[in-house]
């Protein structure tokens, strides 16, 4: 039996939306080096729609795959819908994660939310 599903390995080996958006409308970073996973999300938002998203991740296979899948799930979606993204949805889209790896998908949910909150804060001020 493999450690991860085919889906997880696919997103781990070929992560989607890797990189940086220099003029991002929202940026969020969560996690810390102590626990071993850090995710950073960059969002480009136009008319309340997420037009582009990129991520950088320091972490294990499931952290990288969760970041990749989370970006796919919110790309092209309205901000309000992206706000509702749950770690369960990320894990399910990956055909499941081992129990002790669920925290990595939680981190993906938090990274997206943190980037969206950053966007809303900037948006409210400007």
């Amino acid at each position, binding site marked *: 039996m493999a450690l991860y599903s085919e889906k997880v*390995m696919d997103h*781990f*080996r070929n*992560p989607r939306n*890797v*990189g*940086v958006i220099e003029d991002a409308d929202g940026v969020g*970073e969560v996690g810390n*080096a*102590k*626990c*071993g*996973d*850090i*995710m*950073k999300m960059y969002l480009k938002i136009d008319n309340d729609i997420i037009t582009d998203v990129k*991520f*950088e*991740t*320091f*972490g*294990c*296979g*499931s*952290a*990288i795959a969760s970041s990749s899948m989370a970006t796919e799930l919110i790309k092209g979606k309205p901000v309000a819908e992206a706000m509702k993204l749950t770690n369960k949805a990320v894990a399910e889209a990956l055909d499941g994660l081992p129990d*002790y*790896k669920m925290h*990595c998908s939680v981190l993906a949910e938090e990274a997206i939310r943190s980037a969206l909150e950053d966007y809303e804060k900037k948006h409210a001020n400007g």
Partner: protein
Amino acid sequence: MIYADNAATTKMSEAAVHTMSALLADTWGNPSSLYTAGQKAKEALEKARAEVAAAIGAEPREILFTSGGSEADNQAIRSAAELGKKAGKLHLISTAFEHHAVLHTLAKLEKEGFEVTLLPVHEDGLVRPQEVADAIREDTCLVSVMYANNEIGTIQPIREIGAICRARGVLFHTDAVQAVGHIPVDVLLDNIDLLSASAHKFHGPKGVGFLYAKKGIRLTNLIEGGAQERGRRAGTENVPGIAAMAAALTETIAAMPEVSARLAMLRDRLIAGLSKIPHAALNGDASKRLPSNVNFCFEGIEGESLLLLLDDRGIAASSGSACTSGSLDPSHVLLAIGRVHDVAHGSLRLSIGEDITEADVEYIIRNVAEVVDYLRGFSPIWRDLVAGKKEFIL
């Protein structure tokens, strides 16, 4: 596949497989039975005991067969604690980077009222004999220091520590699971009272090991029942496994001088090659280490993703990252030598075996460098380090 995880387990040698199959087929009698078939099994068992004893400079009756290294560690420590309790000595000394078979047994004893001192192992991964001497008290009943560490491969000054314990009248146990079959071990020269070993680390089968206990040391049973193993471990003996262990050990020790010289040369080549990766550091002393062990930390990346990508490239290795252990903390060994969490997560252990070639070594160096570089390419930590927002540790 290049198998570079021999510290986790080794492939059984042909001699071990052959011995085990032959005994499974032909020598299936119960060694406690008095008829011929039983006595044939008994003979195989005692031949194995003599071989194992000879391999470490012990007498046959000082060898007790167990289910592996963990059981031997448990029984050695339990026995010393039991003897200590009878004499009113409730203090045990060990080190911060022992295997969990030792650390968890000690933690359990602490709950039962014993006091445990864990000595530091310093940045080089070496215990200082003087610190052992300073830690021994009137009520110390055991010193337990591993012969060689399973993660960073550092070889401890066992002979000196043993001499100190002998002079102070304290029992000395060593977890020699990573040492036996890999470097010379002699219980007399090394002043060892109790020693644990495991067959699957030296090309024998899994689930078999032994405990050496110097004659006169009364062992405490972990398993009660029949009178096997001089009454110190009940249960019908795993004769095929034990015989295969002896065959593997005898063969491994005969080949040791040649094999270890070659492995040490290839180890040093790996260390030199991987040291060229920027912001990387070898874990543990460079020379006082097992000929098979290479262990590095690479700043800015995490170990599990490194292992998975190396596996895709046909390299089997291991890491002390949290995500490979299933806990949130990275390896206690790396923390014990002072690696902070940030870099401890990015560790790689390569433990090479005799079938490795020079071409394999070059392949490993090239591929580790490529994968580290790739992972750093989208690591937010690495970005901050390169941008000067965080300071490099390595």
